[in-house]
């Protein structure tokens, strides 16, 4: 709790420490809500020609301060009608199909099945190009015979990133750690290198959200004479930013 207090003190916003964006209202008036949501009541309006300072953003809402020092929340949709000091339109990236086709980062979580075991997985990806992504993932599976974790790094190629439903293929390598259930005769923890290849698809939902499904084949390079081949399928959602 002490650490949290120290953290919260460190996080206290230093007002006036940084430059604030000034926006000029061009619509008849700008409504200011008491909270960052559509249902919060409107208690103030800013008239055309007046300006507001943008303090910070929370999701699609902006906390602003008027010339008279009144603070309130303005929606991104309304603020995009305002202009900067040079007369250009204020633009807000709220996530759209264009962002889905071309973005820098994405991440997501999945649930699925790895070799008959229940799987939970999370990943993050950096876009090298709109088609090619560098992906890093971590998974955990729990089965009747053994539990385990997977950590992997690989490349994914999205064929038509501008399509709402865009297929992809992926290829990568990583490590797998296995903990056999204690009920087995000789439970020995072991780690093995793995390689994987697979195919999947992304489907744009709305804003920054998309669904993603993957099917992968894992080749586990075991210490025995034969490599182990496992199948994995997973379904989840991701968001880009």
């Amino acid at each position, binding site marked *: 709790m002490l650490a949290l207090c120290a*953290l*919260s003190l460190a*996080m206290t916003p230093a007002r006036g420490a940084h430059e604030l964006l000034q926006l000029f209202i061009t619509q008849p008036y700008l409504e200011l809500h008491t909270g*960052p949501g559509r249902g919060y009541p409107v208690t103030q309006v800013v008239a055309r020609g007046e300006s507001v300072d943008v303090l910070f953003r929370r999701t699609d809402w902006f906390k602003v301060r008027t010339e008279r020092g009144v603070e309130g929340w303005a929606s991104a949709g309304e603020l995009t009608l305002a202009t900067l000091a040079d007369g250009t339109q204020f633009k807000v990236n709220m996530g759209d199909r264009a962002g889905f086709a071309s973005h820098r980062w994405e991440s997501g979580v999945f649930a699925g099945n790895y070799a008959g075991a229940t799987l939970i997985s999370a990943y993050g990806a950096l876009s090298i190009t709109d088609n090619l992504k560098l992906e890093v993932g971590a998974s955990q599976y*729990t089965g009747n015979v053994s539990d385990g974790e997977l950590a992997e790094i690989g490349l994914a190629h999205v064929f038509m990133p501008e399509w709402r439903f865009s297929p992809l293929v992926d290829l990568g390598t990583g490590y797998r750690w296995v903990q056999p259930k204690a009920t087995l005769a000789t439970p020995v923890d072991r780690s093995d290198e793995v390689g994987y290849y697979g195919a999947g698809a992304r489907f744009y939902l709305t804003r920054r959200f998309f669904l993603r499904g993957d099917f992968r084949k894992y080749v586990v390079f075991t210490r025995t004479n034969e490599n182990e081949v496992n199948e994995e399928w997973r379904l989840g959602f991701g968001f880009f930013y």
Partner: protein
Amino acid sequence: METRIRLLLLSIAVAACSGCASMHWPWHHPKPDAASTASAGTGDVDAPPPSVIEPQVERRQVKVPKISAKDIELGAYYGELSIQDFGAQPVEGGRLDYHISEDLFVEATYGRAKGGRTSYELLSGNVQLLSDAERRFTYYNLSLGYNLLPGEVFIGRNLAMTSALYMIGGIGNVQFAGDQNFAVNFGAGFRVLPTDWLALHIDVQDIVFKSNDIGIYQLKNNLQATIGATVFF
């Protein structure tokens, strides 16, 4: 000979003077011709527009300061976790939230508690079903939350704080009794923000998993009630 040279110089000077007349010197102001004077006087629409002074002022370049997005919540919680068959025990954990929209957020939590003794152990004296290490209950959850009832909380006449009652559900993993278990969690919580950067939480969740720690597969319900604080950044 001298006369020829004089003639040559004189002819060059005459040629130069006639050439100068056709050039536009800065001090030379040609008189407007009669036609243009007449058209200006009658207001002819076909006449070329009068020249306008070109403004030499360059457009002001505005440097757009970066707007900080405070969509991430990080914090800790403390409460009571009722581990099925192993009693209600104190639980502590950390949480990381990302607010995607005013309605939706994703949350990752990690918590730990320690299971107590079962009724069977208490009644039968010195029996130990699990070792001390196996009684550790650690879990993580990846959840999706929905702000079902956003609103405001009022304290007195002058203090209003934004709040939300949210539903949350997700998947995760529980490590207990020396075993890893896939778990599903669901519940509800209440968040109130005394300031723009601080949030206080009250949460109730059920963490459900299937376990065979006593030899048969059973669905284990582990109810948890916590209070917590988070910081937005």
